[in-house]
């Protein structure tokens, strides 16, 4: 198989700075997004994902400028997410230089947005981000539910059905975050990943829980992920992107080295 699996470092940004929380709380400052994006790109990152966790209007302006600055220096695909609610928001980010946008909460409240956006801009630039949490009890068969607002609000929507519906509406890719695993450094939720990946035709980006390089391998091999996303293991210098790609290649995964 010639197509390489992708490593995607994720920049969670607030007010123009890269931050990283544990289970969406307890935020640590990790630096300037443009510098970091450029460093990751030079180190062989296959894509960059930029998630804006700023809520204020002023913060959004900063985000647009940051996206413009990254896009002017980083010549690999750039996905921008966080607070994307309207067709206009999507257009703004694409015009700023994003190649794809990730839609999360807005897709839940207005699924037609995904349909309209993919019809207008093409499926290739519409990523549906979903935050899923295991809701089945011990002994029951696995079941995951979609949560919104950074994982705070349950929706009652089954994660597998939701993924299938979003693909039918035109999502070109799914960014799947496990709420149970995010920030724990205990590995991806492999059962969740596998279930979603096997249920849809589009690529899946596994997210949430990477603590070491074997977790990335497991995400691809056991979680059937097409791409793996990680933040803190790269931000705080535990591993470089090259190390990660080299390790995955040694384990027999096709990588772009």
């Amino acid at each position, binding site marked *: 198989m010639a197509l390489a699996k992708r490593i995607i470092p994720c920049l969670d940004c607030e007010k123009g700075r890269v931050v990283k929380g544990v289970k969406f709380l307890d935020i640590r400052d990790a630096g300037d997004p443009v510098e970091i994006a450029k460093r990751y790109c030079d180190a062989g990152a296959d894509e960059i994902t930029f998630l804006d966790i700023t809520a204020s209007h002023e913060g959004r302006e900063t985000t647009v400028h940051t996206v413009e600055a990254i896009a002017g220096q980083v010549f690999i695909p750039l996905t921008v997410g966080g607070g994307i609610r309207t067709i206009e928001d999507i257009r703004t980010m694409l015009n700023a230089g994003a190649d794809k946008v990730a839609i999360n909460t807005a897709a839940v409240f207005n699924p037609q947005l995904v349909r309209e956006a993919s019809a207008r801009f*093409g499926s*290739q630039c519409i990523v549906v981000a979903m935050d899923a949490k295991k809701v089945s009890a011990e002994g029951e068969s696995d079941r995951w539910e979609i949560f919104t607002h950074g994982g705070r609000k349950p929706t009652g929507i089954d994660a597998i059905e939701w993924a299938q519906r979003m693909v039918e509406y035109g999502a070109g890719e799914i960014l799947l975050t496990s709420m149970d695993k995010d920030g724990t450094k205990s590995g991806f939720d492999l059962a969740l990943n596998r279930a979603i990946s096997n249920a849809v035709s589009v690529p899946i980006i596994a997210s949430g829980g990477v603590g070491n390089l074997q977790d990335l391998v497991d995400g691809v091999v056991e979680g059937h992920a097409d791409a793996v996303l990680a933040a803190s293991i790269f931000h705080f210098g535990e591993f470089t992107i090259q190390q990660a790609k080299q390790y995955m290649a040694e384990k027999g995964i096709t990588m772009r080295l």
Partner: protein
Amino acid sequence: MNKVAVIDYGMGNLHSVAKALEHVGKNTQVIVTSDAKTILSADRVIFPGVGAIRDCMAEIRRLGVDEIVQEAMQSKPLLAICVGMQALMERSEENNGVDCLGLAKGQVKLFANDASGAKPILREQDGELLKVPHMGWNIVEQCDQHPLWAGIENNTRFYFVHSYYISLGAEEKASGVSHYGVDFTAAFSKGNVFAVQFHPEKSQHGGLQLLSNFLTWDGAN
């Protein structure tokens, strides 16, 4: 001053390609436009495209871009990217069949072992299920010594994102091939035209080198 016109027919994000050209081009002016005069007075032309082919073709015809491309092809170097490449073909299977510009011989086909299926199912020969769209970095095997490959190692990976691929007519000449379930044309050349299925503007070193080569290419082979 090297003037490069990026044809804007309202489809998708042209900023990436404009920014990448500005990044590699010395003394280069990049103009994103749909104006025929501006395009035809430029030294080089980029014909990009993303999204659904039916919408792309409708806008191409509405804005008269079909005639502009045809004319530009005769007179100056033209680089077609992704759906821009597909639009040069005769016909696409996408959107229940769409007639394209017919400026090169070939068909645009869905990545699927069973073309009749509404949901694309694509398998590798060993049975591995492949996701559609074909998204990510894949190997491009160079078939010729085209000037646009200068300085790019054979079998370099480029970034692709597409669900439809080109099956080139026997009359045409592939410059690069890739494999995803099937072998497909990743690049072809025809006179002043070089066309690529991948996104050079998103393909880091190899992609930037190709764009840089385009900026100095005189259109000959």
